């Protein structure tokens, strides 16, 4: 009996639940609609033809470089703003600023709940809401990325700040440091490396999200892909995808290099 309970409530139980959920969804899904469009086969042919004949003409390369640069601008300004928001908010969400237990618990739960709510909405839904409220300007796009990314960063940074080793903090307090001084001299220096490498990982994600801001009609790689697809120029679509991959891979490489040099 005990064995059965252990199996059901432990890891095997999770595997069983996930497999069942997956199989159920496979069963329910409307596979009869999973067929090529009437024009689908020729569509696949077009895509493959584009793959074999990528458009590396000079005029289009200029377009692609411009689109990539636009995506970089959106992604970078968004993650920068997200960091600026996240650091002070993470101080609040870690609850380390307040000495009184009641104040600390209230601030932590209120701030964290707010962050969870903000995070639960996808950045493109944010983009769309902001675009409706404030117009379809680049500012809406940047804010749309910065708000949810800021919330994610703040949550994770707060966890990092909470998880630093305690003895050095106690020693700081015994030499008279207030809570905010302990944060500045103890928690923050101990956690900044983790914060940096996580922030960089999010930078990569943010660039990827910035690429699809075409969702609200903003320029960038996604926008150009849409334009080229409407013209059935799949040679151009592939070139744009190569640019996107190159961008993500190089930021990934930069990040791993940075992480390694931080670990030394």
């Amino acid at each position, binding site marked *: 009996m005990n064995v059965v309970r252990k199996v059901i409530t432990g890891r095997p139980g999770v595997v069983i639940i*996930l497999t069942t959920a997956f199989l159920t969804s496979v069963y329910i899904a409307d596979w009869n609609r999973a067929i090529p469009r009437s024009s689908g086969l020729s569509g696949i042919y077009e895509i493959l033809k584009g793959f074999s004949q990528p458009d590396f003409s000079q005029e289009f390369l200029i377009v692609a470089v411009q689109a990539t640069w636009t995506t970089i601008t959106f992604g970078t300004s968004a993650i920068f703003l997200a960091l600026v928001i996240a650091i002070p908010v993470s101080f609040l969400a870690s609850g380390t600023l307040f000495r009184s237990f009641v104040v600390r618990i209230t601030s932590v739960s209120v701030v964290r709940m707010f962050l969870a709510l903000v995070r639960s909405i996808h950045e493109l839904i944010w983009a769309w809401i902001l675009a409706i409220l404030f117009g379809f300007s680049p500012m809406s796009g940047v804010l749309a990325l910065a708000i949810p990314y800021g919330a994610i960063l703040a949550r994770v940074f707060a966890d990092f700040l909470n998880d630093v080793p305690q003895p050095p903090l106690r020693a700081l307090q015994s030499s008279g440091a207030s809570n905010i001084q302990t944060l500045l001299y103890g928690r923050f220096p101990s956690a900044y490396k983790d914060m940096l490498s996580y922030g960089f990982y999010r930078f990569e994600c943010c660039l990827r999200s910035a690429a699809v801001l075409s969702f609200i009609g903003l320029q960038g790689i996604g926008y150009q892909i849409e334009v080229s697809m409407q013209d059935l120029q799949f040679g151009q679509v592939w070139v744009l995808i190569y640019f996107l991959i190159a961008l993500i891979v190089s930021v990934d490489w930069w990040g791993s290099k940075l992480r390694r040099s931080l670990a030394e």
Partner: protein
Amino acid sequence: MMYTKIFSWPFCSFLLFCFLALTSWTIVLKDSDLLEFFSGGSLNGVLDNFRHIYNSQISGQSDPAFLSFESWYRAVFLSFRTLLVSILAIGLAGFVALLTFASGSRNLAMEGNSPIRRPFSSLIFYLLRALYTVTRSVPELIWAMLIVFTMQAGIVAGALALAIHNFGILGRLCSEVVENMDQRAIRSLRSSGASSAQVVLYGVFPDVLPQLLTYILYRWEVVIRTTVVVGFIAAEGLGRQLRLSMSWFHYDEVIVLLTCYVALVIMVDIVSGFLRKMAA
């Protein structure tokens, strides 16, 4: 000494990042019409719309969507479809990642511990890694555009787009888990006469499975958020309806749909957190 200190990687990265951020912000500020932004663009239009909805309710013409049972019922049904897409997507991604990760790990592929014989194992290793990178780098939305171009929109199309992107992420994460494993355990299994398939089954799998489970659950939380957006393009579930309500300026319906969306996301977060604790 000082030279290497000043031009260290972290410092250079910091400078480069600051330079990029400043340039980017200059461009964004230049390109946005801030006056229009802060005067609230179409904010007034949205408010007018709500005033209109409110008035028509007062005069008894019609109830706003968030007061009608029927629109809630429909939104919950659409949420269920969205949940379905997300489970199908993450399941497909996890399943294929599970099949490939052993051949996609450098240490298994290069030391002849992959289920596939050398030199094919090296070839397949490079192919898989390239595949992980390509699928991971391209966002779900662009996959969705490409898929919808060739395939009927619907649950399967949406799930495929999400699955392709997440397959790249999960595959890479799992391969990295194997590469960071204690290599001695694998070698000692090998020297005790285990075949390569047995090495994967007994030496690698037990270590990777719990990690894979956690990653799958984490990614599921991300996927449920994205499913709605992919639904805009793949014409499925909450996303499709959001798009329709939006283009008809039915902001009362939009509120109902967004509420269901947030509730769905929070529910998935809770379930995933519970399952992760269970698997730990």
